[in-house]
């Protein structure tokens, strides 16, 4: 599975406004709620619940908020950029700029872990990270991801 199989253009938010964890998650969720038909507060709830157990701000300016939901048939994937950076309680204590968001059906732990590792692998590439941070359009974001999106 490739990231681009599941990440839709509408789900890319180029300019996150909030500086706080919850605000950013709300912004990221908005387009996803429309596409998936899941109530936005439901998505925010599962994501925030997961954050409470431990932040998904993995350092290096990256946050991968994720969670599981019972009543969905397919993956919900989002992407967002914050120019100014967000206090995401990341492990290195530094602001977070690049967000991948992932909500999977409850019984698909396997796909979930594969996607997580795929995302973290891509984001290990510093040059690519830099280009993502400066991307100007939704298409540009998708193009950059495509270069590394070899699938699993």
């Amino acid at each position, binding site marked *: 599975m490739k990231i681009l199989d599941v990440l839709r253009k509408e789900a890319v938010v180029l300019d996150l406004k909030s500086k706080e964890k*919850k605000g950013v998650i709300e912004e990221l969720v908005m387009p996803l709620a429309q596409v998936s038909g899941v109530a936005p507060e439901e998505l925010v709830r599962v994501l925030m619940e997961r954050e409470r*157990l431990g932040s998904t701000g993995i350092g290096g300016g990256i946050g991968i908020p994720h969670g599981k939901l019972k009543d969905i048939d397919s993956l919900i994937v989002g992407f967002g950029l914050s120019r100014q950076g967000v206090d995401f309680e990341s492990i290195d204590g530094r602001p977070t700029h690049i967000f991948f968001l992932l909500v999977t059906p409850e019984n698909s732990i396997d796909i979930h872990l594969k996607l997580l590792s795929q995302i973290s692998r891509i984001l290990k590439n510093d040059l690519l990270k830099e280009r993502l941070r400066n991307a100007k359009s939704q298409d540009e974001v998708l193009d950059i991801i495509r270069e590394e999106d070899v699938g699993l």
Partner: protein
Amino acid sequence: MKIIIVGAGEVGFHIASHLVRENKEVVIIDHDAAAIRRVSDHIDVQTMIGIGSSPEILEEAGIREAEIMLAVTNSDETNLVACMVANILSPSTKKLARIRSGDYDQYHELFCRNAPNIDTVINPEMEVVTTIEHLISVPNAADVGEFAGGRVKFIGIRLDDATPLAGSRLLELPDRIQGHRPLIFAIIRDETLIVPSGKDRLLPGDLIYFITDDEHLEASLRQFNKHADPVRRVLIIGGGRISLRLASRLEQKSIHTKIIEKRPDRCSLMAEKLHRTVVLCGDGSDQALLKEENIQDADMVITLTDDDETNILASLLAKRLGAWKTITKISKFSYFPLMHTIGINQVVDPRLSAINSILQHIRRGKVLSSVSIRGEDAEIMEAVALETTDIVGKPLMDVPFPKGVLVTTILRGENVIIPTGQSVVAPNDRIIIFARREAIPKIEKILAVKLEYF
């Protein structure tokens, strides 16, 4: 984490100062300019003057970005409305509300399931009653708390000169105690908290804290020359809401209870609502009345008026007249350090109870409950050790704990394990950790799951 606190009274103030020390972003709202001034004079938080239930004020405070809202004004209704407004403006903000009136007791759950969808209702009065019940169950202890639904208790006791173990170093205890040995996790000596190592000695006058499973409680108390004599007769001074709650609980336990209350109308109300409790109309600090009511026969005198000073004096008087034990309700934190000096050992505080139950919800990781001891110098918390956290899968001695932290208990299914350095915590074990305040942010990190946690 952004947290909005509605109400800058004693609870709001202390929660705010607690959270600021943990580097949380706090906005505190109150309509009383003086209360807000007190906050901004003492702690570095954002303050706002205004009605905390107003949508405009909550918007301005940034409710949409707030992870948690605490509604802790002294008005139940303001707290409820604040939650309702927050629920409309920002449904995914967690809402904790302090609700005290007994009229709402039966409806807490409804408020959680329906609008305003409060996540947790905190009733400090109910919690104080629970604390008093714990203290009554171990009348010789200065502090009693429960974890794991009562299976594990922590006890604070004052060592007297007659304690056979006085003078021993902790590492000598295995030789001096036969059978079950309670785990001592803290010593308070001259108002200073010591997290003891094997070399520390137990001295007369120390307030020591130990943890034990329920089964070994009595044996543990005996080691320290204390006994769990049952309380049969209780005298309550003050007839407020807490007394009413407490008295009806005591009735269920068949403890003989008398209440002394000044206000005649309050007396008739209490007499109406209670069955076996004797309600006396009079002044609880009146020596003659106390003597007439045979105070020397009371196993425990509990002072619960709305006035701290009255409670302190009434407790002292009761002791002087021969009451065996006293419990004193106090609300001013600044009085705590004085209490032992003037001879008052058992103190309860509804506000501290409220703070305890709020803190548990703010902690990262899966913290089930948390209790502050000695004001706020340290905390004991019960948490679930989740998969992928740093605490599981390796011997405790290899877990990078900061100083001033002790894993006191591992609960695995029905088993209660007192761990050693070699013990390994398994995923989904419950653990009870004691930590100095400074160590808590690091403990939260150790209890936090890693990215791959699903």
